[in-house]
């Protein structure tokens, strides 16, 4: 069997606080081994990008951080994911508690068929928020750089907004529950360049307060917004493995692995 990745490839980033860490993370969908032995340390209050060709398992890894894969009945994981030191798959860890602290933004904007206001207020409401909801909604919309555009149409349906606005609404919705981490699964892939630019600008602003992990197939985007980059690649067995991880500038200018270099110079994927 040809092993594409050196098994010891571990992503350790010295210096910064650690927000999330995976250790030999494996995931199967039924009998399909989707990702193998991912070991990765995600620094706090930085943007970490997961890049790689489609099918390399980057979204799967992202969905391990907030246990979204629990919703897929045939998914099974081994290995460890630690969030602030706690094993999130441990017997005492509850996925609902976890997801309150690790927010997620999806590939396609998916606002609820409710008003703009109710979209943002939904998370705090179900989590029993007792403060001033109007303030929280405004604050969240401001953080998502959407307030000025929607302040006069808070009662309109979230579905009436443009695609880019919908995605920022989804970001506001995720921020409203005050998470520590924000997972973004190709957040701009369904958007036009201007809307994409706004999302990227927003990520740069948000990293002062939040740990952001972004999955993207767009290398320019990764190089523009991220501080650290992890490159994943699937072998001939379609199982995704971590090839390289490090500060974005290094990965993009002096890749240690020739496959990384091939990918970022556009030779495959």
């Amino acid at each position, binding site marked *: 069997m040809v092993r594409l990745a050196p098994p010891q490839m571990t992503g350790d980033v010295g210096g910064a606080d650690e927000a999330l860490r995976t250790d030999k993370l494996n995931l199967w969908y039924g009998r399909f081994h989707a990702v193998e032995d991912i070991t990765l340390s995600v620094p706090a209050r930085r943007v970490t990008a997961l890049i790689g060709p489609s099918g390399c398992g980057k979204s799967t890894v992202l969905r391990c951080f907030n246990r979204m894969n629990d919703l897929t009945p045939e998914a099974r994981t081994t290995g460890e994911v630690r969030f602030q030191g706690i094993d999130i798959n441990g017997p*005492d860890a*509850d996925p609902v508690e976890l997801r309150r602290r690790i927010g997620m933004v999806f590939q396609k904007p998916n606002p609820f068929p409710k008003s703009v206001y109710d979209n943002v207020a939904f998370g705090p409401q179900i989590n029993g928020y007792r403060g001033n909801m109007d*303030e929280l909604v405004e604050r969240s919309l401001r953080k998502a750089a959407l307030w000025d555009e929607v302040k006069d149409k808070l009662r309109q349906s979230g579905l009436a907004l443009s695609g880019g606005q919908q995605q920022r609404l989804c970001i506001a919705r995720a921020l409203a529950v005050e998470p520590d981490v924000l997972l973004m699964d190709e957040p701009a892939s369904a958007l036009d360049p201007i809307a994409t630019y706004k999302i990227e600008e927003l990520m740069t602003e948000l990293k002062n307060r939040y740990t952001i992990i972004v999955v993207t197939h767009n290398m320019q985007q990764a190089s523009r917004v991220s501080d650290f980059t992890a490159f994943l690649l699937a072998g001939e067995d379609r199982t995704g493995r971590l090839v390289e991880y490090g500060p974005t500038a290094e990965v993009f200018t002096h890749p240690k692995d020739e496959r990384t270099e091939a990918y970022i110079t556009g030779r495959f994927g």
Partner: protein
Amino acid sequence: MAGISTSSVQAAAAAAQVGAAPNRSLQTPRARGLRERLIEAPLFAAAFVTILTTAGIVAVLLVETLSFFRVVPLRMFLTDTQWTPLFSDKHYGIIVLLSATMLTSVGAMFVALPLGLLAAIFLSEYASPRVHRVIKPVLEILAGIPTVVYGYFALLFVTPALQRMIPQTAVFNGLSASIVMGFMILPLVSSMSEDAMAAVPRSLREGGYSLGATRFEVATRIVVPSALSGIVAAFILAISRAVGETMIVAIAAGQSPTLALSPLVPIETMTAYIVQVSLGDTPHGSLEYQTIFAVGSTLFLMTLLLNIISQRVLRRFREEYQ
């Protein structure tokens, strides 16, 4: 201005935490875990009602049928050629009711099978989307008409018409019930067959056309053979429906338990017998009361078997094309 001012971020940082005290350990708050389980319990109980329904059916049928067989030997039930539980000279030959059920069901299939299959071919291979949108709901209405209405139609429209064509037709007869029952199950045959044909990959059809086959040849030599097991499943399910159908036969086929092979004379199916006894005032615990459960058990086993076979065939068919 779409950007964020630094001050608003700082304001956010100073703002109150969401919810109650932060749960640093990721543990499930006890109250919430309990609440979730309290909500799931009744939902599961509701799903379990369906299991209880099956258990109830089996239990009720079994208890009364066993009492029945304590008096009437199984051999007699299976071999006697007369069915006269309501007379003084009692015989319990299920074959009499069974043959009537088979007669009307097979008769119904003679209508539903060819018409349903041809209609399915029309809808799947010939009809334009517009025609399809009109015809399909109309056929579905046919399936939604209450069976008592079909019974009325069989007795008071089809039978008189048959009598004009074949004078020796009795007022109650298996033929009229069969024909009408055939139309009742036609939509089932056509829609299941059409689904099966729709599952035939486009590439097979295109392969046929590329060899110069006409639409007729593609339909009959490629689509129907490829969809055959799906169509067979439809037929088996349709037979099961016909076997269990009650009101049409009870109204139009008569209530005379005779071992007749002619479709023109009154007969009595298993379902019609249950209706006949139910209309009278049979005392609970009497042997007559138990007969309907013995007949019911026979009916239940037959339809269950047919349904299971149909499902098996259909599952194999689906696996073939996925």
